[in-house]
């Protein structure tokens, strides 16, 4: 049955397309067999703008992953993101028929359907509906009401929805390579699977996954998703800012950001200059280090402020007991933690995928958090499917298959 337990997570990111082949054991351990990667072309802000190029990148990444893991990939779980993805919390309620009074599977499905009965824009589709809490006859905080007695069942769901066609485009991009897409997962949800453990989800935590084109964030409290969101600002924006601010080409700006960039102000010597060496097609130049840092600092500070504004109405910050986790490729920028701490005023840590084994270089790299998270999510869904537990119910409306 080894074949059944292998899941492939695929992420079509703005800076890279990566595929993770993971073996998922019964006990929940995820072992990475191989990670395939290809620099991304034709993707901006997490969404495909050049179908053919993006499709080629997917093919490259998948064949790279096949080579490294020695597994033939036939189907993948795909992570999606983009500014069109939105979320909200909604409550559904059903009345239990008087004659039995016991809450059954049927009622629980019905309450979920009720919660999803909301007016979405016509072109939108629900990607996830994640249970937060059940209420049985007004009794709060029921985790699993199956088998309980009651007259009225209510439930709070966190619903994540997005534009159908845009998600379908991502799926079609993979299907171009004759690979089946089993399901799609929203980036933030996937990242949280490997970045947070159960205790952290209970204590309350914010995961901010800053990628190349977008920033995905998700708030857990009392073990349930309380808020999630996507902000179409990422590392690309920093590069773009540097390019405009220092008047250097994009490629040089990217290199400068990675090699020299820092988000901490006031640490450089006054008037300290960075000498950019001649490059192909670029004559050398001197840039001021403080200016570079100021550009990065301003962008990150603003980004975190928007994230904070995004969830501040839903969840009081002081309830996030486990603090804030930063992940994603952009979290590698020097000084990002200090900026985040100054904005959120609470402990911030840089994290990567936990509870996975395999090549350390892969899972300890925050760039792969989402992709590994997709594989883990797949495992969680698969393992819990037979018992139909409250977490991890996924909806196959998008693919319309299986």
């Amino acid at each position: 049955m080894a074949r059944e337990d292998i899941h492939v997570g695929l992420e079509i990111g703005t800076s890279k397309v990566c595929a993770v082949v993971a073996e998922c054991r019964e006990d929940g351990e995820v072992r990475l067999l191989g990670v395939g990667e290809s620099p991304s072309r034709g993707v901006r802000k997490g969404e495909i703008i050049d179908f053919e190029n993006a499709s080629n990148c997917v093919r490259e990444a998948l064949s790279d992953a096949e080579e490294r893991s020695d597994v033939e990939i036939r189907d993948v779980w795909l992570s999606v993101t983009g500014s069109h993805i939105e979320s909200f919390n909604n409550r559904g309620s059903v009345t239990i028929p008087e004659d039995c009074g016991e809450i059954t599977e049927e009622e629980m499905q019905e309450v979920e359907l009720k919660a999803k009965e909301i007016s979405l824009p016509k072109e939108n589709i629900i990607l996830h509906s994640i249970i937060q809490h059940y209420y049985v006859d007004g009794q709060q905080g029921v985790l699993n009401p199956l088998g309980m007695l009651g007259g009225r069942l209510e439930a709070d769901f966190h619903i994540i929805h997005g534009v159908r066609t845009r998600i379908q485009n991502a799926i079609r991009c993979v299907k171009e390579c004759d690979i089946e897409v089993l399901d799609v997962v929203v980036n933030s949800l996937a990242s949280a699977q490997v970045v947070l453990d159960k205790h952290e989800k209970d204590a309350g935590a914010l995961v901010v996954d800053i990628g190349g084109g977008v920033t995905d964030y998700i708030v857990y409290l009392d073990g349930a998703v309380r808020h999630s969101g996507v902000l179409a600002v990422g590392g690309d924006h920093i590069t773009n800012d540097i390019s405009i601010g220092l008047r250097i080409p994009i490629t040089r700006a990217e290199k400068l950001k990675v090699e020299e960039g820092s988000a901490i102000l006031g640490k450089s010597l006054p008037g300290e200059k960075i000498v950019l060496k001649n490059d192909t097609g670029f004559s050398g130049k001197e840039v001021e280090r403080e200016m570079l840092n100021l550009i990065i600092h301003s962008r990150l500070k603003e980004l975190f402020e928007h994230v904070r504004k995004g969830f501040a109405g839903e969840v009081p910050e002081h309830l996030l007991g486990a603090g804030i986790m930063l992940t994603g490729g952009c979290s590698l920028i020097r000084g990002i933690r200090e900026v985040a701490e100054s904005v959120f005023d609470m402990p911030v840590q840089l994290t990567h995928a936990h509870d996975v084994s395999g090549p350390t270089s892969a899972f300890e790299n925050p760039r792969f958090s989402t992709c590994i998270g997709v594989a883990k999510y797949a495992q969680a869904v698969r393992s819990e499917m037979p018992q139909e537990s409250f977490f991890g119910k996924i909806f196959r409306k998008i693919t319309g298959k299986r």
Partner: protein
Amino acid sequence: MITFPKYLDRTVQPVVRLVGLGNAGVNLADRITMGAPLPLQVVAVNSDQQSLSSSVAPAKVSLGPLTTRGLGAGGDPEIGFDAAKESAVEIEDALSGADIVFLCAGLGGGTASGAAGMVADLAKESGALLIAVVTSPFAFEGRRRSAQAATALREIQARADAVIHFENDRMAELAAPRAGVAETFSACDALLGGCVASLVRLVAAPGPLAVGLPDLLAVLRSPTGTCLFGTGASKGDNRAHEALEAALKSPLLDSGALLDQAGNLLVHISGPPGLSFAEVGVIMQEIERQASTSTLLHLGVATSADPSSPVVVTLLGKTGAECHPSAAPVDVIFSARPARAVPPPPSAPAPEAAPLQEELVPTVEVPVARQPLPEPVLQRAHKAAAKTAPEKIKQETLQFEPVTRGRFEKIEPTIVGGEDLDVPTFLRLNKRG
């Protein structure tokens, strides 16, 4: 045994006295008295009793109470001179005991123009080093005043060890064109005050790399040429850079453009004890880049004991090199903008320390009319002017930048809360380095 003047002895703190002569001088004296405490004694000297009595200077000398009856010279240098003659004893008393005298005056009026020469004479007789800080009147004040100012300036130049001469016309550029009259005058006064304060600091402050009087005199030795002066202070994170930037912003430096015409340039950097060597290096590098290769730089560094004191960068110099025998007549011909007509010679000889007074101040006055120049010299000079002129045109940086989104130009914008997040944050916040 050769005895040196007392002001050359660095073991004792020199007694510095500032004499504000005439209305403008009294104003400046007031400003300096009320400003940050400096190791100097301020004396206000005027023939106008009204201005004297409203002055806050600790010491006051009333000029010619019998000649003017305390009503001032009324713009007539003759009356000013008579008044000074009448009060010569009082002036001498006020000057006695000083090692260094700063004579501050606004030339062109009656009191300052008439009495300046006299006061300068008395100061020299008392054995002090005399540094004159004078302004010439605005062009619109009339030619008569300009002529009076020019005569007085020559008198001072003949006597003073160093003359720092500001043209009011150029100082007015300090203030915005629409600024009020009071604002403009106060900006001019502030610049003068800053100049005197930094000179005092420069002479009096001990430091690891002290600039002495010899350096100062060497820089100010050239009798012609425009005075270059700029000072800037900053306490910020990027203080070295900001202080230099502020110093270069001075209109007397033409935003740093005139630096490359300076024959001698004195750079004085003072700061808190934490002033780092790297910061000094940064400042000097920047100046080095803007100055011409032939400019002789005099660097002075001083640190104060107070950790909260800002980094102050002071630039002082004169356009053109030292008075060159062959270049002198041309200098006189193009006295309007001599420095632009005569590029500095490739190698300005390093001035010796403690120069003799005869060398310092040229006493020869060459009236233009009496010494006509041969035609070729004039033509050459014109050519030189024409040649150097195009270099002066500097490409201005465009202030207004259109909103730019760079690589996100053609794709769906990220608009959050009405703000286009694709536009660089620092541009939206208008943070420029």
